[in-house]
């Protein structure tokens, strides 16, 4: 704990306070492999300086049979960067940039449950990194869109080829983006929102 003196008590800057009228928050998850640009994307659209929350697991290796029943405890820490966008006087939207590795799912199993939807950020240099997380989202019924972050040194595939490689159904949007640019990141979020909106429309008709 590093906040002994009262002048060093942590907290948001005055300009980062949410209005008292804020009644509820929603969340969106940005998932992808290490170095794909999740944090950059969060930072480019967030109204606050991105923050980091973490979760620590101290139980002996969940999913690791060798450790089962042993006294040794392994501490696993997974950090997530997140940002925030005020939507209305009542509603605020949080964006969580989350790693795609499997060990992560044990720690944050509630994260995707309530999320409005997810953005799967794909790096064409390692598209297979996103396979597992996409499968998990499908299994969990979490709606998602795919955004291909364009790296200068990455291979360029036509989006149709990527759609085929990712086995994406035709209704799921796939877009290219440059997460360093706010407008581009915002467009990805808009794509997700339009997709969720179309789902809402089609479900209300059935």
């Amino acid at each position, binding site marked *: 704990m590093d906040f002994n003196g009262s002048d060093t008590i942590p907290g948001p800057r005055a300009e980062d306070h949410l209005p008292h009228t804020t009644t509820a928050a929603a969340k969106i998850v940005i998932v992808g492999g290490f170095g794909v640009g999740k944090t950059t994307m969060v930072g480019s659209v967030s109204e606050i300086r991105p923050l980091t929350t973490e979760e620590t697991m101290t139980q002996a290796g969940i999913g690791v049979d060798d450790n089962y029943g042993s006294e040794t405890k392994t501490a696993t820490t997974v950090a997530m960067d997140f940002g925030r966008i005020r939507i209305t006087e009542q509603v605020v939207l949080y964006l969580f940039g989350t790693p795609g590795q499997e060990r992560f799912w044990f720690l944050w199993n509630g994260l995707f449950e309530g999320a*409005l939807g997810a953005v799967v950020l794909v790096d064409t240099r390692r598209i297979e990194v996103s396979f597992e997380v996409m499968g998990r989202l499908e299994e969990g019924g979490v709606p998602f869109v795919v955004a291909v972050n364009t790296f200068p040194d990455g291979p360029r595939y036509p989006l149709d080829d990527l759609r085929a*490689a990712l086995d994406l159904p035709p209704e799921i949007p796939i877009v290219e983006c440059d997460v360093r640019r706010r407008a581009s990141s915002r467009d990805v979020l808009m794509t997700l929102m339009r997709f969720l909106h179309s789902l809402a429309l089609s479900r209300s008709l059935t």
Partner: protein
Amino acid sequence: MTPPQRRRRQPLPQPPAPPPPVPRSAPSPADGQEGTEGEGKNPERLYIITCADGERAPVDLVTLIVARAEAPSSATPEQTAVLRMCAAPLSVAEISAYLRLPFSVVTVLLTEMLAAELVQARAPIVRQQLPDRSLLEAVMHGLQRL
């Protein structure tokens, strides 16, 4: 050059919703009614603080916490810090970030503070089977302003 190939997966049957928590001292919940109770498809979380020993309040990363009291003289430094930063609504994720404490630790801290009525929790908007279109429209409108 062709990219590696994935195969899509199907949604798994979702586990049944856990029964709502019941305060230990409360009379047993309407015996014989549970057939109707569990089938309502309302995914809203109920924020009932049961405070069974060791049980954590069901706070989400984006549950908003608001202070509702001054720090009592018995408050720990962490509680004092939470009360100060939650003068305006603040998400649990932000509290965790500012305190540099893991989410689960903050959850325990907030469970105590909710039970002591030092803070209030505002439940998050969660994904529903039928998404709320007016909410999505508001979000799109908000994003457009960025």
